[in-house]
């Protein structure tokens, strides 16, 4: 994942549109469903919209978003190095005071230094547990945990992976239950549940899978990169939200895969409904969603290619 903590009150709880033949439910809680529109370029701002962070050398992807003290947001991103050994990844942190401002210089906060990580740490997913920030991250073929008590500047890793044979974590916490979404060998998005944040029980079946029987579906060919959130509403109840990357068609030749961002929700964390209407909440090209909901507004960070390198972009709800 990559979503944030969300004990943030939302005033509205909408319901989805009518069901259609391609799946999706009409009783879906829509808070968090956007749609998220990519920031339009504005030459009067320092930000090169929609890009929050872009680099001519390094691949940036898999963002996580957290609220920044004093306003704005803090982003954590996976950075893939260009040097030997090829493909190693690290996690970097950057702060943005306002949506139209350039972020501060990124700082490296997590590196691969455990054998099980196999040179890779990435795909951060962060929630707050009291004053502690809890990061789940992908490393090697498992998902690890690191904690921070200084607002995310330094992190202490747990010694062993939280979950094995899984990657690309999405994490949410409602104060009692932890949900962890991931991708694994099933080809779908799996889910595990915990009451303590370290002992997780995996659901028997994936919660989101490609809509292989509907060639028109935006997630017909593949699903990936889940982000989770707990959305507490003004009425006192809440629901779980899932954003994920969906791929309509496998790439041909040198084409890059054109992911779009989809949405699903659940009242109980066990039974999940896709957004009705077979529509993404963020248009392609966009992958690796991370969502920060503040009041009635939502900000989504995503990964997409800017020129020749993947970069982190921003999209917002109206």
């Amino acid at each position, binding site marked *: 994942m990559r979503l944030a903590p969300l004990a943030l009150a939302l005033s509205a709880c909408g319901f989805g549109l009518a069901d259609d033949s391609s799946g999706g439910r009409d009783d879906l809680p829509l808070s968090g469903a956007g749609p998220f529109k990519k920031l339009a370029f504005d030459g009067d701002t320092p930000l090169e919209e929609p890009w929050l962070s872009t680099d001519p050398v390094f*691949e940036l992807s898999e963002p996580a978003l957290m609220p920044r003290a004093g306003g704005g947001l803090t982003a954590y991103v996976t950075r*893939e190095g*260009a040097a030997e050994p*090829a*493909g190693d990844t690290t996690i970097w942190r950057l702060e943005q005071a306002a949506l139209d401002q350039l972020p501060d210089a990124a700082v490296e906060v997590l590196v691969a230094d455990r054998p099980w990580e196999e040179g890779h740490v990435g795909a951060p997913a962060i929630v707050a547990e009291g004053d502690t920030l809890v990061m789940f991250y992908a490393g090697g073929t498992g998902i690890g945990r690191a904690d921070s008590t200084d607002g995310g500047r330094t992190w202490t890793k747990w010694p062993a992976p939280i979950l094995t044979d899984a990657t690309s974590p999405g994490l949410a916490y409602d104060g009692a239950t932890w949900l962890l979404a991931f*991708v694994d*060998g*099933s*080809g*779908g998005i799996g889910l595990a549940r915990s009451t303590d944040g370290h002992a997780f029980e995996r659901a028997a079946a994936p919660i989101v*899978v*490609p809509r*292989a029987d509907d060639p028109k579906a935006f997630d017909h*060919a*593949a*699903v*990936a990169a889940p982000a989770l959130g707990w959305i507490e509403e003004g009425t006192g109840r809440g629901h779980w939200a899932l954003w994920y990357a969906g*791929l309509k*068609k*496998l*790439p*041909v*030749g*040198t*084409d*890059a*895969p054109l*992911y779009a961002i989809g949405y699903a929700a659940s009242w109980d964390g066990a039974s999940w409904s896709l957004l009705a209407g077979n529509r993404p909440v963020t248009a392609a090209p966009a*992958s690796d969603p991370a969502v920060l909901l503040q009041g009635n507004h939502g900000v989504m960070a995503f990964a997409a290619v800017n020129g*020749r*390198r*993947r970069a982190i972009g921003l999209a917002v709800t109206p």
Partner: protein
Amino acid sequence: MKVRFWGVRGSIPVPGPSTNRYGGNTSCVEVRPRGAWPIIIDAGTGIRRLGKALMDERFGDGSGTAHILISHTHWDHIQGMPFFSPLYRAGNKLHVFARQRGDTHLQAVFASQTEDPYFPVPLSALEASIEFHELVEGNRFAIDKTLVTCTRLNHPWIAMAYRLDCDGAAVVYCSDTAPFSDILLEHEFISKPPTGEPLPKAIADKLAAMRASLVALCKGADLLIYDTQFTIDEYKLRPHWGHSTPEDAIAIAREAGVKTLCLYHHAPMRSDEAQDAILMAARWSAKSHGDGFNVIAAHEGLELVLGDDDGLAPVVAP
């Protein structure tokens, strides 16, 4: 036994930022039976690094022995051979196996690779002793304690698939091959895809027999490494190039009852992100059909431990 991937790419090496994670070197896989000398399958550019690693073992002092199984002598499967360091140390023994050609002896094929003006060091000047062993389909032979079996594939000028049984496990290497349905590829250059007319019965029967032999070769294998260079859309454009799709590999794996299917011989234009998508789609394709085997994608550095090897076996042969 251990299986380690040193090169996973087809056609041509493609180093660069977009291929960092899966790797840009062409085909080379090391199979290391417990306590025995390495068996190397294919000598694409990945073999260069393998050679460097072997020089830290007994190959460095000229007392190593390696067996190299060549699927076929197309460039991407032999390009690294002249850069294989153990060849340049007296005392080392290399045994090279490949399919017998009708026109040229195997040794002459490799000798021509290093002739002037293509390379400065002729085969005859190499310090190590090299023996060439020609094979015909259906051969069964032993390399130390490993039983090797082979059958032919559907590729221009014919490639061989190998099965290695050792340490209570079996690995099958199947690269390069087209599926056995649309075209028979043998000893001629075919410049265009077939017209779509039904195949003559004799050719259809021959293809069916080749496929049956391959399924038999793969029967119950712990690991099936399979050429999946194309997506379905790409295959439709170039069935005469002699490569398969993940769907073809899944079908063979299903019929043969393998435990793990490894996507291999990735297309040179395929970015890491695109390969991720293809892997996810293949996993769901297998899962949604009720297949119980794992689907993974080969990347440089991937090491798998099979059978009764505990992963702690000495890598230096006695």
